[in-house]
């Protein structure tokens, strides 16, 4: 299995949509074949269309507010005493997380098809919140599927979705988290694909959704590349990019533009959710060697039992609480372009405490996983190593959990 240079990773799948010949594909009910094919034709055309790109960039700039900041975490760097720790503050984006890029692109595509409604799934509530914002902006009706457990633990985002006029549909089946929300959303699309567009909230699902999402979030690395050159004059000789990985949309977007660099110069580190330290459950299929299976239309490494039933996951972070992982990351793992590891709930909380103690930055529980590993590895790295952590979400949505786990001061002081 080989990663090709000079070709965007999203376009490296084969005719049937498989990366490396075995990850991804389109394991979908017959009813969805046509709408997926239509979306593929549209996306393949528009991603080469200069007018469409200009339109995208206009909305990214004026509405999302790109570029997001690239800042040095001086105090944290000093405290850790190793590599220089920087952050790409993607949570600056309108709405407070990277999910806005994919949501905006899906709404722009939906407008082209003439469909009046868009449906989407959400875990942490960011994908849903952003989709509701974008739908409102572009005049589409919006329906968001969200696990009942996630609705309870991510209330601020639920409120935001409702305020934007979206209908939030609670999903009570299975573990009542993201995996069930995605299933329910796909089922809704099966029954309504003639009138409704679907937005999959991460780089998962049938191949075209993986590609659209990866194409959208790549905005992050396009900006970072420019910012690195501005700051250092060129791409640093020792660069390490840390990102949390749930479905894998922010990490893929954070890395995409650096794909062709040698990994000795530019290393990618994906941090999965290891779950509570004392629990056997986790959401880290790459770290813990899960087998390949089919989930939500795509072949990928996925937590499952020997029969093929998808296993329940556990993580403090709703956004990472997913048993599968993007086919793109399976591909990057098997081609050894990226390295994957996990952080536990407790490690993520500790990292959150440390970052907020030293910096004016409030990463949500998802990027706190990436900070945990970045901080621990930075200690052993030389001062000329540039560590960049994607702070892809803001902790506002985690208020309830943080207060419960760390006490009031960690919520109030920010």
């Amino acid at each position, binding site marked *: 299995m080989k990663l090709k240079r000079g070709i965007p990773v999203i376009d490296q799948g084969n005719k*049937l949509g498989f990366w490396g010949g075995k990850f991804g*594909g*389109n*394991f*979908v*009910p*017959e*009813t*969805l*074949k*046509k*709408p997926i094919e239509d979306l593929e034709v549209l996306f393949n055309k528009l991603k080469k269309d200069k007018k469409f790109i200009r339109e995208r960039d206009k909305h990214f700039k004026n509405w999302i507010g790109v570029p997001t900041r690239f800042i040095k975490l001086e105090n944290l760097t000093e405290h850790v005493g190793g590599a220089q720790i920087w952050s790409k503050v993607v949570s600056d984006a309108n709405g407070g997380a990277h999910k806005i890029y994919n949501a905006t692109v899906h709404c722009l595509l939906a407008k082209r098809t003439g469909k009046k409604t868009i449906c989407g799934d959400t875990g942490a509530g960011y994908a849903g919140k952003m989709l509701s914002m974008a739908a409102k902006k572009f005049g589409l009706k919006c329906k968001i599927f969200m696990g009942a457990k996630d609705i309870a633990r991510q209330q601020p985002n639920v409120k935001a979705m409702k305020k934007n006029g979206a209908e939030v549909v609670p999903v009570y*089946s*299975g573990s009542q988290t993201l*995996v*069930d929300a995605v*299933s329910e959303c*796909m*089922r809704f699309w*099966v*029954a*309504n*694909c*003639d009138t409704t567009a679907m937005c999959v909230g991460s780089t998962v699902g049938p191949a075209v959704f993986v590609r659209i999402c990866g194409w959208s979030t790549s905005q992050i690395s396009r900006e970072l590349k420019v910012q690195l050159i501005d700051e250092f004059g060129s791409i640093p000789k020792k660069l390490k990019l840390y990102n949390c990985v749930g479905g894998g949309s922010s990490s893929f977007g954070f890395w995409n533009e650096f794909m062709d660099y040698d990994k000795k110069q530019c290393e990618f580190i994906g941090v999965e959710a290891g779950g509570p330290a004392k629990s056997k459950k986790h959401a880290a299929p790459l770290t813990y060697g899960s*087998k390949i*299976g*089919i*989930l*939500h*239309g795509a072949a990928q490494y996925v937590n*499952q039992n*020997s*029969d*093929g*039933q*998808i296993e329940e996951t556990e993580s403090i972070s709703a956004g990472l609480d997913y048993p599968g992982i993007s086919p793109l990351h399976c591909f990057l793992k098997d081609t050894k372009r990226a390295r994957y590891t996990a952080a536990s709930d407790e490690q993520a909380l500790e990292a959150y405490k440390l970052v907020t103690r030293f910096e004016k930055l409030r990463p949500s529980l998802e990027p706190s996983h990436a900070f945990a590993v970045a901080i621990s590895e930075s200690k052993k790295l030389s001062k000329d190593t540039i560590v960049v952590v994607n702070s892809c979400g803001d902790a506002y949505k985690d208020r309830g959990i943080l207060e419960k786990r760390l006490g009031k001061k960690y919520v109030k002081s920010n």
Partner: protein
Amino acid sequence: MLNPISVAFKKAKQENRPALLTYTVAGDSSKKQSLRILKSISKNADILELGVPHNTPVADGSQIQTSSYRAIKNGIKVNDIFKIVKDFKKFDKNKPVILMGYYNMIFQYGENKFLNKCNLSGVNGLIVVDLPWPENKNFAKKCKKKSIYFIQLLSPTTTKIRLKKIIKDSHPMNYFISMLSTTGGKLKVSPKDILKNYTKIKKIDPKKEIVIGFGITEKTIGKLKSADGLVVGSAICKEISKSLKHRQNPVTNVSKLVKKLKNKIL
């Protein structure tokens, strides 16, 4: 030897009626009950579809989901499903049985091993909801070698060119999804329109048997009886759930329901 599925269609045609296909989830409400249900409905059903429950089903509505989760909770495994089929075949060896499920279950078991087990237990056909054409070409060929029908799904969204290609590659039986819906949705298209679509598909190759499924209940089945076969699934799963709720015997209730369904198409 002719596949019992084809024999069943032939018999129904001689009686001038569509074949009645029932769908129940293997292991619902338990392994034993599931077998009892099959035995009790086999005199009125022509072909028995047995669902392989999966916990992330992307095409099933709430009734079949409920049945599936119940079966999984009660501990059903793929090997138990083969055992149920084998035991049933000891009771009625000529009644065709079709397994219907999601591809991950087959993929984890191993395609070849799965098909061998199908042969050993007496499975006659397979429906794999999320393995569409052309992705299913290889697997369908393997099925053919084992004399198992791989049943292609056709949908109202399937384009005409695609219909022709799928039907050309298909085995003697295909399955037409009546409308844009998950299983068990309310019939939102008139039976007349469904039959119009059905006739168009039938014309492509009149020799292939086409069954209609999704949204068929006691109320609607009579209006669709000009088709080669009709599938009732969610209505049966609902009957099982209802029986359990009212502490009644699901075996007798389902058996009664299937008898009623049969009477509507005579």
